[in-house]
């Protein structure tokens, strides 16, 4: 756990540094008040100090309990990223169907036919509620 804490603290230290660097071109003081650069530089500095403390002296002990099904969680995250990528090509409805089917088949470990049927019903329900009842348009893709 300490290693993860250290890595995360170092990443946040970098975020703080990027924040300070990004705001360094902005003025710190305008007429009668602080300029647009003051807040990001202050927050970035606080973030860097705290992250440095955590990186030097992490408080966690013992190994991280990733859980017995951690790979499945990663699978769902990959599927979610895949859905975000695929929307431009197969549209939101197609992407949601593919995501639901893959999620039910590979993460929930349902039989393929059951997963297919459930995914179809679920996406049809979502389409009906959001597109027809709430008038929220689902974007179309290049192919569908």
């Amino acid at each position, binding site marked *: 756990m300490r290693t993860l804490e250290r890595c995360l603290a170092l990443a946040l230290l970098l975020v703080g540094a990027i924040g300070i660097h990004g705001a360094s071109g902005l003025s710190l003081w305008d007429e009668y008040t*602080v300029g647009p650069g003051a807040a990001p530089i202050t927050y970035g500095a606080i973030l860097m100090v705290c992250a440095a403390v955590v990186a030097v002296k992490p408080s966690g002990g013992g190994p991280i309990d990733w859980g017995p099904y951690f790979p499945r969680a990663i699978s769902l995250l990959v599927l979610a990223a895949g859905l975000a990528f695929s929307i431009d090509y197969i549209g939101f409805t197609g992407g949601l169907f593919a995501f639901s089917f893959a999620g039910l088949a590979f993460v929930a470990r349902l039989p393929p036919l059951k997963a297919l049927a459930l995914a179809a019903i679920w996406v049809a329900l979502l389409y009906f509620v959001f597109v027809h009842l709430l008038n929220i348009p689902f974007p179309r893709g290049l192919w569908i």
Partner: protein
Amino acid sequence: MEYDVLSALGGGFARMMDWRMLAACLAGTFAGTLVGVLPGLGPSAAIAVLLPVTYGADPLFALVAMSGVYVGAMYGGTITSVMLNVPGESASVVTTFDGYPLAKQGKGALALGLAAIGSFLAGTLGLVFLTIVAIPLASFALKFGPAEYFAVMILAFTLIAALTGGSVVKATMALAFGLLIGTVGQDIVSGFPRLTFGSMDLLDGINFLPAVVGMFGLAEVLQDISNPSSFLTDKKSRFRLREVIPTRAEFRETIGAMFRGGFLGFFIGVLPGAGATIASFLSYGIEKRVSKHPEQFGKGALCGVAGPESANNAASSGAFVPLLSLGIPGSSTTAVLLGALVLLGIQPGPRLFAEHPDVVWGLIASLYIGNVMLLIQNTVMVPFFVWLLRVAQKVLPVVVATLCFIGVYSINNSMTDIWIMLAFTVLGCLFKYADIPASPVIIALVLGPMAEASFRQALVISSGSPLVFLTHPISAVLLLISALTLIYPLLRRGPGMAEAA
């Protein structure tokens, strides 16, 4: 702002006597109970997902539904804590200490009955306090200028850092991260782009809703997939409905715990950063201390369930006090509610009671009505919720994930928001594994721009003198309290506390 509180509340009840409002309240509380029962979707993410659905609706209708989700989740979390030893919400963790042993003794239904009754009594007590306190506090807050508002927000930040739990340094780090990303976008005063690095998508800033859904929705789903609860084969969670009602002796034994929890929970709930989880733990500690049989705690003490459950529900009522009176959220859930109010065209804060009395009193009235609905749902419908939990556990992650996608996309019809949500999902998971609190990030993301605006306005008004924060008495006192909040633990524990805290 002088008017009769009772007649104003009466007006709120009159506004609620519309079938659509009652339906919104019923649907919100039911959905909230589901959110509490089913692991994977916290109340803040659920409200964030619900928000786009309510665009264009009557603001009160939307707020009634969202508040129903918030209070309903507090009730629902109890069911899995008692029956399955799996807390649905962090505020219900302490309920597992005695609730699950009671379930193993065959008294699970009784524990749930006492929790529901305690939640109802304490929740109503908290609402009475909210009704009494909100107007005087809002009237007082009308005297606030930018300096006072900035001081209130600094107090909120220090309390969040000190009371969120775990390491103060980690909480401050999360807070600073939220504040920093809150500055991304066009500066409201000068119009300069800040930290956008040339991206047009970031000019409008980072919307907090995708961040909430990522950190508290999808990240929770992933955690739940990694560490699924082992209740699918548990058969102990079946009982008859009549077992839910406590006997007169059992009620008499626990009524004190319910009221103690109610009082404590309300006052803890008012404090930013403290909230329902701390209230429930404190209540458990107090009940153990005042009990004639402290040895029974951890083995199935009725007061060990009634007290904390009452406290966490009263805390959710208390959390509405700073939100409605000052426009300051104390938790990630109330931060989402604050964002919802703004998106619905209502500015929370001291003028809320004067400018939108129908909405605010309608909302408070809906909380009273919602409490009654929740009492019925959480006694009569418990077997249904447990059944649903068994049936839906496998497909739940996919269902929640698709709802998160649609909810976030519908906010601005933007794919950037989807990517922001995914980034915060990864961050939320890493924060959880590294034991870094996530709620300060969200609160800072919401409050940070407001704090900066107040700070800059106060300086402009005082012609650039930073002494403005010390010459205004209210601001000076609030800043002093903030300083003491940070310094006191250091003085008490000595150097080196920072790491130990």
